[in-house]
């Protein structure tokens, strides 16, 4: 018999956590979701992250396409994305931001 949708969802989330895509903060948010008062809390959070994240990625792409890349603006966008991803527990996105920020900082130091 096929697992219920909720069991499938729980299994999917566990897999994402075990593979390092999500961190403990997402699991804490998952536990905070109150079925009676805010059943759509996680769905709203993820939707907002995807929407905001998409916008930030577009802005990052625009900054990188310029002939002269504004490294300060790039850094600020990465800080913004890092904050959003850490708030939702998107571990891999957060780690990517850390790595990119380090690279941009090195570039800034080279240019100075």
């Amino acid at each position, binding site marked *: 018999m096929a697992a219920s949708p909720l069991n499938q969802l729980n299994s999917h989330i566990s897999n994402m956590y075990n593979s390092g895509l999500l961190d403990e903060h997402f699991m804490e948010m998952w536990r*905070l979701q109150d079925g009676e008062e805010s059943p759509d809390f996680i769905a709203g959070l993820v939707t*907002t992250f995807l929407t905001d994240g998409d916008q930030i990625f577009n802005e990052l792409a625009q900054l990188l396409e310029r002939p002269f890349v504004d490294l300060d603006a790039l850094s600020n966008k990465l800080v913004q994305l890092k*904050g*959003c991803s850490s*708030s939702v527990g998107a571990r891999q996105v957060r780690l990517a931001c850390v790595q990119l920020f380090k690279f941009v900082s090195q570039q800034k130091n080279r240019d100075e």
Partner: protein
Amino acid sequence: MAGAAASSVDRKIRVLLVEDEAINRAVARAVPKAAGGVELNEAENGEEAVRRVRELGTGGGAYDLILTDRQMPVMDGHEATRQIRALGVTTPIVGVSSDCLAADVDAFIKAGADDLTPKPLSKEKLDRILAKFGLA
């Protein structure tokens, strides 16, 4: 007195969250609900935070705690902290930031904040902050 613990069971701890990102505000809203006994107000940038604090003054309606992001449009967390301190407000101010290197902590403290905690805000971090400032 601003920063004093709730004097009765019914009085909630009034916290001002200063944060421009909607998702970070959504997460921060869930944390006090879990902690209990906290009334969360929100400002989307430092300028709005300064205005709200100025309007409340330092009397009984003042905030017990201010949590502020660093990087925000219009006015950032450092400048907001400086301006709030310039009003004579002694409410504990804690920075909540993605950047928590020693230099980031120093910058917030120099601006007048009392502490800095890394994002994301969690129940554990909020409990620790409330306990640190005698608000729990």
